[in-house]
């Protein structure tokens, strides 16, 4: 392992180094994940718009009356709203089943989850400093982060807990499963879980689309790539890992090349050795 090549914590960059890093791109997201992300964005937009307009009874409704009327007019009827809500939701579940099957090893395996969305000591420090910086109470440097920063990790933990809940309760209501009390409680859980995700989703969208420092993260959800300077500054631990993997790989390749080179040159000498070994036995 080429562990000694890159320092474990971020170091000061010279202007030249920074310039060189800024010129290089490194792959952050697989194209399937980019597509899944925007599919997911579309689903959430549709499901929130229609779902919030289905609940109309005055004591249950949580959106203003004009919104309920507007959505009913746009979709023609409340029954249509419900149909669209269920159709998009079922499609969403189908797509995520495909994702779970094909992406299990790369994205959903316990080891991967622990590393990608489990929070470590750096992450908790990051959260504290990030919040203080946001309100202007400190200018302390943020601790190095992995592929996802602590904010993204926290959001991911919640989403990973809430999404299966939303899917299961949605299925119970769509197909009137089990008993009436299961349907009743599914409504409450579906609403609560979606509400919690929305409160995080607002930060997710703000950070991705509005917050200037994270702009490259937004573009990475289109191109799949980030420039290395951003990776160095915002996801140092991940950047270091990628670089070390590259270094390892390069070392292995050159070692392979050396060995094949050796074998060619010393090809004749290896035969007697083998023979000697046989003779010894």
């Amino acid at each position, binding site marked *: 392992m080429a562990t000694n090549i890159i320092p474990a914590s971020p170091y000061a960059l010279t202007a030249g180094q920074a310039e060189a890093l800024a010129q290089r791109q490194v792959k952050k997201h697989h194209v399937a994940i980019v597509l899944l992300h925007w599919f997911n964005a579309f689903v959430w937009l549709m499901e929130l718009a229609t779902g919030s307009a289905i*609940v109309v*009874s005055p004591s249950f409704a949580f959106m203003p009356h004009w919104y309920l009327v507007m959505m009913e007019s746009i979709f023609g009827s*409340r029954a249509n709203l419900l149909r669209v809500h269920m159709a998009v939701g079922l499609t969403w579940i189908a797509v995520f089943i495909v994702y779970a099957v094909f992406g299990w090893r790369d994205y959903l395996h316990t080891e991967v989850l622990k590393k990608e969305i489990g929070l470590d000591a750096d992450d908790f420090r990051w959260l504290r400093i990030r919040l203080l910086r946001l309100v202007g109470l400190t200018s302390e440097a943020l601790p190095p982060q992995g592929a996802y920063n602590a904010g993204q990790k926290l959001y991911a933990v919640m989403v990973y807990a809430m999404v299966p809940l939303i899917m299961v309760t949605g299925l119970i209501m769509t197909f009137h499963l089990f008993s009436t009390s299961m349907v009743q409680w599914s409504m409450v859980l579906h609403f609560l879980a979606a509400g919690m995700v*929305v409160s995080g989703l607002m930060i997710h969208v*703000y950070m991705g689309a509005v917050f200037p*420092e994270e702009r490259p993260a937004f573009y990475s959800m289109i191109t799949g790539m980030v420039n290395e300077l*951003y990776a160095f500054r915002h996801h140092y631990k991940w950047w270091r890992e990628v670089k070390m993997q590259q270094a390892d790989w390069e070392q292995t390749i050159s070692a392979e090349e050396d060995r094949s080179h050796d074998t060619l040159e010393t090809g004749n000498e290896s035969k007697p050795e083998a023979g000697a070994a046989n003779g010894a036995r």
Partner: protein
Amino acid sequence: MARYAMVIDQERCVGCQSCTVACKSEWDVPIGFARTRVRPAGLLGTYPNFTSAFFVAQCNQCERPSCIPACPTGATWQDANGAVRVNRDLCIGCGSCVAACPYGARYVNPDRGVVDKCDFCAPRLEHGLEPACVATCPAKAKVFGDIEDPGSEVFRLVYRAGAKRMETADIAIGPNVYYTGKREHLEMAAASFAPTPPRTVAAALVWTRLAKKLVYLAVGATFLGQAGAFFRQLSVGEKQFDE
């Protein structure tokens, strides 16, 4: 617009269940459930001069229904003619309305997974027919018509002959099914089949008292925090990461 009501003459009812059968076949009501049913209320008179008393129970198409506010999706609604109806495309089968009905007039249809109830045979009315139970009753114990029409039989029975609603002092939500018959018969029926207080299911209470507030709080707090951060961003000025 007509305002429909029904008057049931308890004295005429012989408990033959023709109305129950007509209704079940008209609306494919599964075994074990009914939109309307004839229930035995006891015996009237003393031996050897007594008769069986019956009570016909169905949806009362109340004027202030407790089932409508209980329905979260608005699947239960009231027609302009007073009939309380269920939109099957909107019903998710949560059964909140079943608990809210003081008359036990609703059930969750196990074949469809959604709620079903008497709606005065609304589709038949649209075709100019009487409700199936009224058309089929051999004793003519069920009278159906427009209670706002002074020339109608129901108007006469309710306002002249004194047909009574099945309601109590506490639970009076304006039922539009009236009953006539001997006083002791009606009293006997009231003893067994008086309306029970509407129930609100626990999940609905959690929704209205807790879940809604929690979601408002979570989303509101995030929004405010974010708005603060955004205005700070505007006042400090934008700094791209690589500058």
